[in-house]
């Protein structure tokens, strides 16, 4: 299963968008334009985009606190994402979610959960829902290696397997749960091996190789659509930035040699650029794409800067679909 020339361009565009968007976000944290915590996906772009490109627009995904890559990977528009990071009323979540919850339902995202493992049962329920409603949608769940030690992971995989639900469990294994290395939190190095315990396939894939991720995910998606049940995919990847941008760390938990080696040898964008050139895409074509993405990110930042802040009087909005006697703001503000 290989990507067409157009799909390759689109995959590269989405990977570039994630990186450029997050580099812009890092600059805006520095200049005080983005409040709160920001967790970047830089280094993990091939895993995210390779998985998302194997899905249809109508398929569901859930994500994590590292939430920028997933909507961009699934094809979301950048301006509402950037506006959300800057807390504006034009933000995708109207300034209620921020960097850890960049969920864009227009591209099938049903939640970016900042509770580790929190989205895994939700994605499983979306798979159940597709099964009950008789559609051929699949549900793909992104989570990190840290989440695989949560009860929600084990409970969800078990139920998806016994009921053969159309769910793809996609582990972005970046080797560190915040600062805890995988080797000190797992009894063996491969998350995918846990699949055997639930009676589903477990697949290990090079998360820095977009086409390999795409092929593995495509096979899992096809299996899910055939009604044969879930798959656990483990993409071996790496996070280039700190757990959160600007995080103060009192001690070192990974060597700078390791980080430098990944950046030098395993950068998914550099690797894919080489692959695209080898596949016959021209240097000028790629350079034009890079400029176009850079311009789109600048435009997203400008859009966000020019957007209004939310009105504090509207803080109760979006609590309920069907409000009853709510808000009692006149009582609660005193």
């Amino acid at each position, binding site marked *: 299963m290989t990507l067409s020339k157009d799909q390759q361009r689109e995959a590269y565009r989405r990977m570039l968008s994630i990186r450029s968007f997050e580099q812009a976000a890092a600059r805006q944290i520095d200049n005080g334009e983005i409040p709160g915590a920001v967790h970047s996906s830089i280094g993990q772009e091939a895993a995210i985009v390779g998985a998302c490109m194997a899905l249809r627009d109508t398929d569901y995904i859930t994500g994590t606190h590292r939430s920028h890559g997933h909507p961009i990977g699934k094809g979301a528009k950048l301006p509402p994402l950037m506006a959300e990071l800057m807390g504006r009323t034009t933000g995708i979540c109207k300034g*209620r979610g921020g960097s850890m919850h960049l*969920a864009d*339902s227009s591209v099938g995202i049903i939640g970016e959960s900042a509770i580790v493992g929190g989205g895994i*049962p939700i994605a499983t329920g979306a798979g159940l829902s597709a099964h009950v409603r008789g559609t051929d949608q699949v549900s793909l769940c992104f989570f990190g290696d840290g989440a695989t030690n949560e009860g929600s992971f084990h409970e969800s995989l078990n139920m998806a397997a016994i009921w053969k639900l159309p769910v793809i469990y996609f582990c972005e294994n970046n080797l560190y749960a915040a600062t805890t290395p995988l080797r000190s939190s797992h009894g063996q190095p491969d998350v995918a091996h846990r699949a055997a315990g639930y009676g589903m396939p477990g697949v290990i894939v090079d998360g820095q190789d977009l086409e390999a991720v795409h092929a593995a995910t495509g096979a899992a998606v096809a299996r899910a659509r055939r009604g044969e049940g879930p798959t656990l995919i483990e993409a071996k990847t790496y996070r280039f930035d700190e757990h959160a941008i600007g995080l103060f760390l009192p001690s070192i938990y990974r060597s700078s040699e390791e980080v430098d080696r990944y950046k030098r040898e395993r950068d998914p964008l550099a690797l894919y650029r080489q692959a695209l050139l080898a596949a016959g895409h021209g240097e000028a074509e790629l350079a034009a794409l890079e400029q176009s993405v850079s311009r789109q990110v600048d435009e997203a930042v400008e859009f966000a800067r020019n957007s209004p802040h939310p009105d504090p009087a509207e803080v109760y909005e979006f609590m309920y679909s069907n409000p*009853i006697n709510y808000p009692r703001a006149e009582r609660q503000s005193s």
Partner: protein
Amino acid sequence: MTSQRLSYLSAILEAQKEEMERDPSVIMMGEDIALYSATGVLGKLDNKRLWSTPISELGFTGMGVGAAMTGLRPIVDLTIASFAYLASDQIINQAAKVRYLTGGQARVPIVFRMSMWHNQANAAQHSDRPYPMFMNVPGLKIIAPSGARDMKGMLKAAIRDDDPVLVFEDNDLWMKSEDVPSDPDFLVPLGKAAVKREGRDVTIVSIAGCILHTLPAAEQLAGEGIEAEVIDLRSLAPLDTDSILASVAKTGRLVIVDYAHRTNSAAAEIAAIVAEEAFDALKAPIQRVTTPDVHIPFSPKLERPLYPNKDKVVAAVKKIIK
């Protein structure tokens, strides 16, 4: 309107059956569900509507949330209310919050059922009445009906509601019967209290099975010339503050009867609201009849005296009506 005599428990089963027949997007999930809580539904529906789950409260609760966000209306049966603690991340961090967190993109039409099995010698891990904990979470609707009629009408309204609703079922009430309208569209709206008895001297606010003590207490007081107004709260979130304040404005006295532990109970919140908003109407201090802050013991000799009962309600009223 025709009606039928239903127990509180059969009202639950009837409500589920009718809503599942009416709306194909309603599904049920829970442990041992085919055997217990879906009785009367089984056999009439295809096997995709009832999900008898492994013992995985967190997992299946979250699956219900995901299903609710993608077009279904799940009824998640957590059976014993204490088991909701295992599922609380999905109830609190997901069901209650995702609509807000996504700026209104999400919709979570889900019902969580849980029963309160206090007074049954089941000791501390099966005897909690944890509704006040969930009242501290914005984004949830919480009901605790006290009779078959309200249970059927409110559970049906909850299933049709587009927001997450927690239903606290009081095991003391399961076998109590009432006449319930047979109309399959009979609904009791969420968010409104019911005046079960009118009176001028004191307001007694009653929650769930406390009605079994407050109405007899009001009867006894009436025999002594004290007319109590009994308000059955029915809905804990949103709280029908207007009904409580209107009654207190009339009677000038308030007793709240609540099975929860005393600290931060529903009674504590109601007392605070009345103190803030109707202090001038009060002729006497507000009284709370609650369960003390101690774990529920196994031995019935230890357990039974802890809870609100008729005598405690009468004593609380008499304390503020000299």
